[in-house]
């Protein structure tokens, strides 16, 4: 019962695990409309990229950032002309729901009273890297905010783990995706980080292989459909036209 | 000479030896063990066919049978009283147990095994070093002390297990076939050692044995078992000559084992006097020791020939006048118990019923007991008060 891209009327989508709920909803809608089944493989983007490298059976790769899509593209495994970035996300500062922490702007983190800063691993996980870059852009005195707080960072293997830590301790502050923060109990958003302060947070989508099947093309189109965009937005994602 | 009833107190009247009372019930595979006896004897033999429940009795006394119910006590100490809910764990019973299969500790060498109970022995006020040295010497273990127990021979294992029990300073020794796989010459050397343990260390013992000689040499009382119950209990000689316990026609038959005193040495023989003050004298194979030394003498009952006239021209050196005091019958054989005069113990002789009637033997009759020197066997015996 191995997955196969040749199975007629099926699309195998390797997608970042944080997209699971929304993509499943989209998938169900797609199956109803197109009569084509979508099969997902949810994991960290790096895992997915390496699996694609090891056994290229995926039809579509939805990476949480450009970097792991580039990794696959460098292997010449992305179908030319299919790569898009239709989805985006936004960072928020979160704290335990019992926390007294109030923030007016990001720079206040420098003086805020917390012991740990919970991030997805800034070296490995896209959400973490975006958070790091954001903090690096904030000037505090002679240095940037990252230099002020990096010793407090607890790098988590994924956003969920980062959130779980925030939920577990009052003295932990986290910077995570807004979409994840919204579905997490015992955690509250303390501050929305404006798009302008963070680097562009984009999910990359592309067909894998040289010659995408018809079903794959239909799925890629469906991702950009208006109804789909509404679904994404309802889940808190940003959506983008074109490229 | 009647067999004492079940549960009766019997044995030599040495009041120093605490009363051992055993009254246990224990379900076994094919029958229930139901054992009832009490004894003040310093050494009690447990005798009976394979599967009779001998080992089970010892295990119950040692506290190793959880399912045992009833009452077990030694002197003032009550070890089991299921009515009162009393159960003393094995480690507080101060018992030296020699299990039938040795059960040496494979993670310790011979020395370690022998000293496994040294702490208890010290608590009991024993002089462990001396006990250890003596035990090693007499059980011939000295050369084995640093050996791994895994490669010991069968007899070596058994001796180590026996030594371990003795060196643990017990208040009661439970020995399950202590001499079973030990060769005859060694057995001859170990028997007196066990006797000494019994006498000098004043450790009472319960001893399972299939060997009537062993039992007589060591035990005062004997408990005979069959299918889980005590079928006879009392003085060794009474029980052993009981035809139900051991048909005396058996190839071991009944052996007289009596106390004697060394008198003098002859050319190739020695002379002993039966009992300490007895009048009867016997020529026995040459032995060592000084005049006045105590010895145990063993004469198989069937080796003794009874004559109504003093015979002549025989190879047999001993012709002892005696008076028949009892005649006991087992099938076609008759056991004649005769007394040899003042202070000498009685001797039993087994003859056929034919011979008995042909010679017209009856109680009260004066006869001659013909005993070959070669039929006499002497064992070392510690210097002690008479106990037979």
């Amino acid at each position: 019962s191995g997955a196969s891209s040749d199975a007629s009327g099926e699309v195998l989508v390797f997608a970042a695990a944080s997209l699971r709920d929304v993509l499943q909803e989209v998938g169900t809608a797609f199956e109803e409309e197109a009569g084509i089944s979508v099969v997902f493989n949810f994991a960290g983007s790096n895992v997915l990229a390496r699996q694609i490298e090891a056994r290229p059976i995926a039809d579509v790769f939805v990476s949480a950032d450009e970097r792991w899509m580039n990794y696959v593209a460098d292997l010449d495994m992305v179908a030319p002309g299919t790569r898009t970035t239709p989805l985006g996300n936004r960072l928020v500062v979160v704290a335990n729901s019992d926390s007294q922490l109030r923030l007016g702007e990001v720079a206040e983190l420098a003086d805020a009273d917390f012991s740990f800063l919970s991030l997805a691993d800034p070296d490995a996980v896209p959400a973490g890297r975006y958070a790091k870059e954001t903090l690096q852009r904030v000037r505090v005195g002679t240095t940037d905010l990252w230099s002020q707080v990096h010793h407090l960072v607890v790098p988590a293997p994924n956003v969920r783990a980062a959130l779980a830590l925030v939920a577990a301790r009052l003295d932990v502050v986290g910077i995570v995706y807004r979409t994840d923060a919204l579905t997490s109990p015992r955690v509250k958003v303390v501050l929305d980080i404006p798009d302008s302060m963070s680097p562009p947070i984009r999910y990359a989508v592309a067909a894998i292989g040289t010659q995408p099947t018809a079903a794959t093309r239909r799925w890629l189109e469906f991702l950009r459909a208006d109804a789909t965009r509404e679904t994404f937005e309802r889940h808190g994602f940003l959506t983008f036209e074109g490229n | 000479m009647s067999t004492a009833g079940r549960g009766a107190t019997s044995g030599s009247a040495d009041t120093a030896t605490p009363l051992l009372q055993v009254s246990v019930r224990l379900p076994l595979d094919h029958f229930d063990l139901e054992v009832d006896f009490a004894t003040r004897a310093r050494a009690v033999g447990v005798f009976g066919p394979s599967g009779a429940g001998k080992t089970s009795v010892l295990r119950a006394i040692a506290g190793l049978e959880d399912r045992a119910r009833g009452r077990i006590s030694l002197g003032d100490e009550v070890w089991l009283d299921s009515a009162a809910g009393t159960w003393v764990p094995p480690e507080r019973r101060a018992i030296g147990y020699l299990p039938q299969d040795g059960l040496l500790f494979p993670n310790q060498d011979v020395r370690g095994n022998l000293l496994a109970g040294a702490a208890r022995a010290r608590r009991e006020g024993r002089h462990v070093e001396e006990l250890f040295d003596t035990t090693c010497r007499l059980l011939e273990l000295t050369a084995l002390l640093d050996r791994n127990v895994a490669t010991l021979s069968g007899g070596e294992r058994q001796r180590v297990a026996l030594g371990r029990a003795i060196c643990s300073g017990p208040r009661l020794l439970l020995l399950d076939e202590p001499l079973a796989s030990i060769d005859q010459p060694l057995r001859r050397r170990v028997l007196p050692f066990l006797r000494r343990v019994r006498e000098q260390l004043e450790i009472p013992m319960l001893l399972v044995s299939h060997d009537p000689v062993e039992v007589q040499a060591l035990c005062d009382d004997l408990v005979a078992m069959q299918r889980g119950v005590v079928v006879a209990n009392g003085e060794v000689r009474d029980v052993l000559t009981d035809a139900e316990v051991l048909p005396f026609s058996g190839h071991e038959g009944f052996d007289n084992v009596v106390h004697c005193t060394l008198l003098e040495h002859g050319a190739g023989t020695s002379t002993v006097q039966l009992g300490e003050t007895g009048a009867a004298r016997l020529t026995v194979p040459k032995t060592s020791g000084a005049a006045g030394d105590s010895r145990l003498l063993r004469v198989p009952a069937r080796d003794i020939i009874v004559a109504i006239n003093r015979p002549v021209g025989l190879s047999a050196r001993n012709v002892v006048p005696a008076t028949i005091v009892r005649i006991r019958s087992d099938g076609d054989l008759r056991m004649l118990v005769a007394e040899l005069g003042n202070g000498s113990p009685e001797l039993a002789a087994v003859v056929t019923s034919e011979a008995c009637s042909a010679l017209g033997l009856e109680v009260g009759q004066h006869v001659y007991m013909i005993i070959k020197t070669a039929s006499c066997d002497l064992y070392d015996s510690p210097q002690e008060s008479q106990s037979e």
Partner: protein
Amino acid sequence: MDTVTLTALGLTLQVAAAATALVLVPCTLIAYALARYEFRGKALLSSLFGLPLVLPPTAVGYLLLKTLGSSGPLGPAALGFDLGILLTWKGAVVASSIMASPLVVRTARVTFEGIDPRLEMMARTLGHSRSKVFLRYTIPLASRGLLAAAILGFTRAVGEFGATVMLAGNIPGRTQTLSLAIYSAQQAGNDTEAYVLLGVAVAVGLIAILGSEKLSRAPLRTGSA
């Protein structure tokens, strides 16, 4: 239970059972060799079967992915054909097997070390060849410990996540075992779903362990030969 959970449960049982079956015989043999014989490379063999434990499962999965991947030494390019392990349920079996084998080898070895080798020699004097003795005497004598080893392997396979997610992927209905489903649910922030799945996994573990307790309480003797 919804169908996704049911599928995950079925798949989990299938994978764990297959992994246990796959691992049990070779690991038992190796454990026996380690317990009974002295040979060159014994310590190394023992270490080899201990190593999957010292590495984080994802690292093991990663190494396996490289090995079995398209350009790996056991990949289709090198072999000339595809083993069909990656991203299939077989991948989950391979991952679980490798992660479970250290436990099975150790436990089986300890079991064999507890069995008196003289019993085996005794059986040989009765005319049974070495292999027959192993099958008809050693294994029955070791049955309780081998059952423990199997249960350890099985439960470890049920809980296996790190290597499996790399090798088999997390494809619902195809390679998503309970452990992977729990991960997915947690990643999506779906705690309720995660708890249900956790409950199912716990139930599987309980049934396996309670069953083994019952089995191993049965008398050791196997009746007449």
